[in-house]
């Protein structure tokens, strides 16, 4: 007999169930009467700072209830630690009816069999057309022929620039893709100092946030994992990546065109949002914040592709999709809701808030009249999914990435820091 044997988990377990009840207020519950089922919808959004955004979302949700009398929506928002909270919910057998799925952690739910294959719903709903959605974003939830999620919206990561700060430094706006050397030169020209040598304006806002700086690895010909996503050794510790990390560290430490992390901490504020850094890499989600920002207006912003040493720049997209968990008690109603939130009607109104690029091509095209949106959409073909869309446990890789970059910023040789990270990631992959 094999010493290692398989045992079935006795989930949902009462203890996990009790904890989930405490955390989420109970599993799928009957409505006020048997005829009014409650559709439980899980999302990571918390209380929005933007009141107009919240009002739009609330109005759209109420409309679904009006259009579907007898169905009540119950939102179970888990801002922060969304993935562990959802996992706990599933272990307790209290999974929601519909859940938002982030591209960077989609594999956790899809690869572990927590989401339904949506093809039967699609087949029974002739009005649903997969070709309405951006194919690369649709691919987040695709596994061979199965489709587990439908895109809501997404954003490619782009290089934002503040036109007012460019004007102040008398530097022309970026006109197209630039390589690392050109980007460094630009950042140097945008970094201004007073008579005493104190920096009054930085060229670039650097953040030790792997979804941002991974783009420098990709655009120098490197990557974090092997092509099949199975291991980090041989990929992460490449010379291309070491060069990219050294380049980033030099931006901060040698050329001082970006504030170091202590300086950012010292002010306690975002240097780009406060108009003290001229460029940053981020996503579309930043835009609503600039609507009310007193220091940097939306009209100050320009968007272009990230720096690249490749013939064609590569970027990443972060997408929000919707899936129906296998534990959903009302899959038919869940599909109806999923169709609603991915519909042209819903998305046209929802995307008017400026939160992201619509996952539907028709709505995105309609909103593409705006120059900023058009700039985002131009970058979509060069955007690829984050590793977390396909690799379970990528969250840990990103945490190790932050540690690695911290080491490099504190003076560790980039190659050694990358090798140590690769060893840790592979050690984890061996036991996961």
């Amino acid at each position, binding site marked *: 007999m094999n*010493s*290692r*044997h*398989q*045992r*079935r*988990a006795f*989930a949902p*377990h009462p*203890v996990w169930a*009790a904890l989930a009840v405490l955390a989420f207020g109970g599993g799928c519950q009957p409505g006020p009467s048997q005829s009014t089922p409650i559709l439980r919808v899980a999302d990571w959004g918390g209380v929005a700072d933007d009141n107009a955004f919240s009002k739009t979302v609330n109005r759209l949700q109420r409309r679904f209830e009006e259009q579907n009398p007898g169905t009540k929506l119950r939102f179970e928002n888990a801002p922060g*630690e969304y993935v*562990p909270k959802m*996992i*706990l919910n*599933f*272990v307790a057998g209290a999974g929601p009816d519909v859940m938002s799925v982030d591209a960077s952690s989609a594999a*956790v*739910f899809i690869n*572990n*069999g*927590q989401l339904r294959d949506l093809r039967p719903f699609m087949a029974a709903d002739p009005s649903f057309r997969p070709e309405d959605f951006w194919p690369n974003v649709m691919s987040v939830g695709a596994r061979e022929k199965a489709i587990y999620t439908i895109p809501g919206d997404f954003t490619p990561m782009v290089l934002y620039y503040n036109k007012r700060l460019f004007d102040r430094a008398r530097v022309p706006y970026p006109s197209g893709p630039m390589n690392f050397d050109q980007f460094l030169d630009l950042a140097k020209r945008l970094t201004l100092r007073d008579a005493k040598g104190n920096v009054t304006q930085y060229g670039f806002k650097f953040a030790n946030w792997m979804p941002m700086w991974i783009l420098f690895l990709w655009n120098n010909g490197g990557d974090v994992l092997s092509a099949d996503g199975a291991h980090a050794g041989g990929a992460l510790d490449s010379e291309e990546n070491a060069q990219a990390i050294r380049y980033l560290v030099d931006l901060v430490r040698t050329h001082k065109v970006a504030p170091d*992390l*202590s*300086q950012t*901490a*010292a*002010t*306690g504020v975002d240097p780009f949002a406060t108009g003290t850094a001229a460029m940053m890499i981020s996503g579309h989600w930043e835009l609503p914040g600039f609507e009310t920002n007193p220091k940097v207006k939306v009209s100050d912003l320009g968007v272009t592709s990230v720096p690249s040493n490749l013939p064609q720049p590569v970027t990443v997209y972060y997408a929000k999709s919707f899936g129906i968990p296998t534990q959903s008690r009302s899959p038919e109603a869940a599909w109806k809701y999923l169709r609603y939130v991915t519909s042209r009607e819903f998305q046209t109104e929802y995307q008017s808030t400026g939160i992201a690029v619509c996952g539907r091509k028709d709505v995105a095209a309609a909103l593409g009249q705006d120059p900023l949106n058009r700039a985002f959409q131009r970058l979509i073909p060069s955007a690829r999914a984050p590793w977390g869309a396909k690799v*379970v*446990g990528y*969250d*840990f890789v990103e*945490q190790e990435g*932050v*540690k690695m970059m*911290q*080491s490099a910023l*504190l003076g560790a040789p980039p190659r050694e820091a990358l090798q140590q990270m690769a060893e*840790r990631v592979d050690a*984890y992959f061996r*036991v*996961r």
Partner: protein
Amino acid sequence: MKKSKLGYLFVLPATLHLALFALFPLAYSVYISFYKWNLLTSTKEWMGLANYAYAFQDSLFWRAMGNSLRYAALSVPMGMVAGLLVAVLVNQRLRGMAAFRTLFYIPAISSGVAISMLWIYMYLPQTGFINSVLGAIGIDNRTDFLQNEGTAMFALAFMSVWVGLGPKMVLYLAGLLSIPASLYEAADLDGATKARAFFRITLPMLAPTSFFVLITSTIGAIQVFTPVYIMTKGGPRESTEVVGYHLYVEAWSKFLIGIASAKSFVLLLVIVALSIVQFRLMRRQLEGHAVS
């Protein structure tokens, strides 16, 4: 018989609570520690003692254990001294002393997350309260306490002193109030100074209280999680990655539930061993006092 049945009835709710929320999860995590499981799959793979072997070989786990002990070595003595001093201060018969006692206790009943956020701002370079004070007295005020390997752990420990002041103060206050006044009267008649009375009467008489505070504070310090999670995420360069945070990462970032469970039992063994050592040392000390 009837009386004892009533007694059982009274303790039943607490017993049920203990069984459901403490004993059962404890037993279940022992069971899990022998399996490979990521929570979401319907199967668990039997690993025998492999998870424990992995725990013993994982250098980061032992580094985290060392960090926890370092945190305890910094925070526990500072906390005990501060708690005792404040207890002595609030033991004075002055008007409004109850208000002071309450004020000192407020951090202990406040949200750990909120307190951690507050201290992030306190520790900010240049603009933070601590650096502002340092700057005002002519000391370099650009230290980023939480991003510096040399200061991050001390910064966390220093904050814990403030947070834990209230409970320690209450325990020491109870200890102080239980010391017979006749001892001080006798010392006074013998011409002992206040300082001498403090060191020869107060401190020895507080030994059992100190022992209790030492044990509970050490266990609490080794289990610290919230401030690390909120303020440093174990950084910089893992200098504050304590074992509580390490276990959290194993379980909720890596989904290695079996390994995390095994490591938590290794932690339990370490805490038990430490407590035994402390018990023995303290017993010897108490016996020494009894003889003298």
